C-alpha cells in the first residue's frame, strides 16, 4: 500500500471536490429556498466559462477581471430567467419548473453551440498562476491550489452571508416558510429572484474558475450536473454546510474509486445517490419533511 501515492491522490481530489462544492452551493441554495430543481445549473456553469473566454480572449482583459465580471453576467441571466420564466410556475407542482429548467438547459447549450461553434474554445491557465508549487509530497500546479483556496474562501463567505447577515436571515426565513415570510412583510418574490441570481452567479463563477483546467465546450456543464445533484442531495437540500461537506466527500469518493475500481467510479455516484435517496433523503445536514 503506497500511502504517499494515495495521499497525493486524495489531495488532488480536493480540486474535484472544490468544483463540486462551487457548483452545488448555488444549486442547494436555489433548491432549498425556491424548491426548484435547476437542471439549467450546468448550462449556467458553462455560460460562466464562455463568458470568461469572451472577456479574456475576445476583449483582451485580465483573468482577474473575468472572475469579477462573469459571475455577475451569469447572475443577471439567472435573474432574467427567474423573473420571466421560472417565477410563473411557482404555484404549480414542482415538476413544472424541473422540466422548464430541463428545456432551458438544452436551449442554452444549443444556443452556445450556434454562437461559438460546437467544438469548444481554447482557454489556458493565466500566466500569473502558471507553474507548479512543490508541496513536498507532490508537485501541485499553482492554479489548482488556487482553486482549492478560492473555494475555501467562497464557501466561508457564502456560509457567513446566509448565516450572519440580515439578507441571509430573510432567505432562511423564506426557505422555511415563504408564505409566512411574505405575510410578515418581506418582498418574497424579490428575495426569490435574488436567490436565483445568487445561485446562478455562483455557478457562473465555478465555470470561470474551471475554464482553464477543463475543455471549454457546450457540453461541459452536463458532465458535472448529475454529480452536483448528488452532492446537494447527500448534503441536504438547502444546507450550505451540507454541500461543502458532501462536496468534499463525493470528490474524494470519486478519486478513491478511480484508484481502486477504475471506470466503475461513474456508476458509484448514482448508486450513492440512490442509496441516500432511499434511506435518508434529507441527506447529511438537511431538514426533514422537505419532500418526504
Amino acid at each position, binding site marked *: 500500500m503506497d500511502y504517499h501515492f494515495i495521499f497525493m491522490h486524495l489531495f488532488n481530489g480536493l480540486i474535484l471536490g472544490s468544483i463540486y462544492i462551487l457548483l452545488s452551493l448555488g444549486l442547494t441554495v436555489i433548491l432549498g429556498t425556491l424548491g426548484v430543481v435547476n437542471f439549467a445549473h450546468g448550462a449556467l456553469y458553462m455560460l460562466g466559462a464562455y463568458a470568461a473566454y469572451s472577456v479574456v480572449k475576445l476583449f483582451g482583459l485580465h483573468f482577474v477581471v473575468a472572475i469579477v465580471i462573469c459571475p455577475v453576467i451569469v447572475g443577471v441571466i439567472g435573474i432574467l430567467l427567474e423573473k420571466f420564466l421560472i417565477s410563473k410556475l411557482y404555484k404549480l407542482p414542482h415538476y413544472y419548473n424541473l422540466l422548464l429548467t430541463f428545456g432551458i438547459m438544452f436551449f442554452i447549450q444549443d444556443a452556445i*453551440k450556434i454562437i461559438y461553434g460546437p*467544438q*469548444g474554445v481554447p482557454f489556458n491557465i493565466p500566466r500569473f498562476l502558471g507553474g507548479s508549487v512543490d508541496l513536498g509530497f507532490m508537485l501541485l500546479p499553482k492554479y489548482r491550489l488556487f482553486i482549492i483556496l478560492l473555494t475555501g474562501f467562497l464557501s466561508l463567505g457564502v456560509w457567513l452571508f446566509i448565516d450572519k447577515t440580515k439578507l441571509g436571515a430573510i432567505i432562511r426565513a423564506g426557505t422555511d416558510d415563504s408564505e409566512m415570510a411574505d405575510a410578515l412583510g418581506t418582498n418574497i418574490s424579490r428575495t426569490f429572484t435574488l436567490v436565483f441570481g445568487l445561485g446562478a452567479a455562483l455557478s457562473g463563477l465555478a465555470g470561470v474558475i474551471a475554464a482553464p483546467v477543463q*475543455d471549454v465546450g457546450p457540453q461541459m456543464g452536463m458532465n458535472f450536473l448529475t454529480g452536483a445533484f448528488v452532492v446537494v442531495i447527500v448534503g441536504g437540500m438547502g444546507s450550505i454546510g451540507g454541500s461543502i461537506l458532501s462536496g468534499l466527500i463525493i470528490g474524494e469518493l470519486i*478519486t478513491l474509486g478511480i484508484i481502486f475500481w477504475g*471506470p466503475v467510479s*461513474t456508476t458509484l455516484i448514482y448508486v450513492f445517490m440512490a442509496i441516500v435517496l432511499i434511506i435518508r433523503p434529507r441527506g447529511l445536514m438537511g431538514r426533514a419533511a422537505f419532500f418526504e
Partner: protein
Amino acid sequence: MTNKGLKISVVLIGILFWLGPAKAADTVRVGVITVLSGGQANNGIVDLRCAQMAAKDYGTVLGKKVEVIERDHAYNAGIANEKAKELYEKENVDVIVACPNSGAALAVAEQALIHKKPFLASSAGTSDLFGKRCNRYVIKWGYNDYMLATTVGLWGAENLGKRWYTITSDYAWGHDLLKLFTAALAKKGGMHVGNDMVALDTADYSPYILNAIKAKPDVLVLLNVGPDAVNATKAAIEYGLKKQCKIIHALLYEQMIQGPGVEIFSDDYVAGPWNWKVGYPGAKEFSDKFLKAYGERPNYSAAGTYSAVWQYLEAVKRAGTTNPEAVIKALEGHTFSDMFANPGYIRPEEHVEVQKAYLFKVKRPEAVKEKDDYFDIVGSLSVEEAYGPPGLFGCKMKGF
C-alpha cells in the same frame, strides 16, 4: 376521437402528403451520413464538404450528374441506423460514405447488407468493419484502428521508448485500440506499465496523470479523442508529465487542434494515412482548394471520404452501371492512385483499403507557417507492416 383530435389528424395527413416520398431522379446519388450537430460537428462537416467537392470535381458519370444527399446522425448509432434506412430506401441513394463513430458505422454496415447497397466507411475506425462484422457491401476506406495502433506501436517502440503507459477512453473504440496497441508493443519488446480506463467526457484527468507519473513511462499513449484528448493533454502538461515523457495520440487532426491551440499538442506524435504535405500528386492542390473554399484544411479522414467518393464513381464508370454487385466487384482487388492514396489497394479478402502509413509530429507554435500546418512527417510504415497480412481479422464475407 374528439373534434380537436379529428382536426389535428386531418392537418397532419395533409402535411404528411405534402412532405411525402421523394421522387426518383436520374442521377447517381451519393449518401453522406456524418455528424452535423453536437460536439463533433466541426469534424463532421469537413467530411460532407469533401464528399460534395469530390462529386463536383468528378462531374458526370455514365452521362448522369452526381448528387450528394446528407444526413446528420449526431454521432449516435441509433440515429445513424435510421438515417441509413432513410437514405437507402426513401432517397434511393446508390452508395453511402463517411459515417464517423464506430458504433454508428457498424449499424450502417448492417443496413448496407439488408438493403444490398454499398457503404464505403471512410470515417470510422473500428477493425470490426473488416473483421467479425464484415460483409460484401462494405469497404473500409482510409484509416482504421489496426493501422493507427500498429503504426504508432511499431514505430514508437523502436524510436521513442520501451515503457508505455496508456490512458484509454472506456468505450468500444478505446478497447479496440488498447488491444491493438499492446499487441504491437509486445512485438517490439515494449513494456506496458499501466493503463487507466476513463469514461467518455471526463473533465479532470489529473488522477490518471498522477497514476502515470508513478509508473515512470517513456511514452504516454492517449487512446482518446476530442475533448477527452484535450483534457488529458492539458493535465499532462500541468503536472509536469509532458516534460518527462513523450506523448502519442491515437487520433489527432487539424480540427481537434484548432480549438485548444497547437501549443498544447506540440511535440506529440500520431499516425495517419495522409497529410496534405505527404507529397502525393494532387494532395496539396486538393487541400489548398478546400482551404480557399472553407477557410481550413481537411483532415485525413475527410480526405479519405473524397477519395472514396471519387473511386466509387470511377468504379461505376468501369462497371458501366450503378448496380451494387457490379460496382463492388469493380472495386475489389483494385489498385488506384489519387490525391489520397498513391497507391491504394482494396483487399478482396476483407474489403479494407490499404496504403502507406505515416508518423506525424505536431509542430511548435513558432514553426507553424500557414493555416492548419500543424504536422511534420517523421516516419512511415509499409502496407504490410501497418495493415498486417490479409485475413488477420477473421472476416467471413457474406453478401453475394
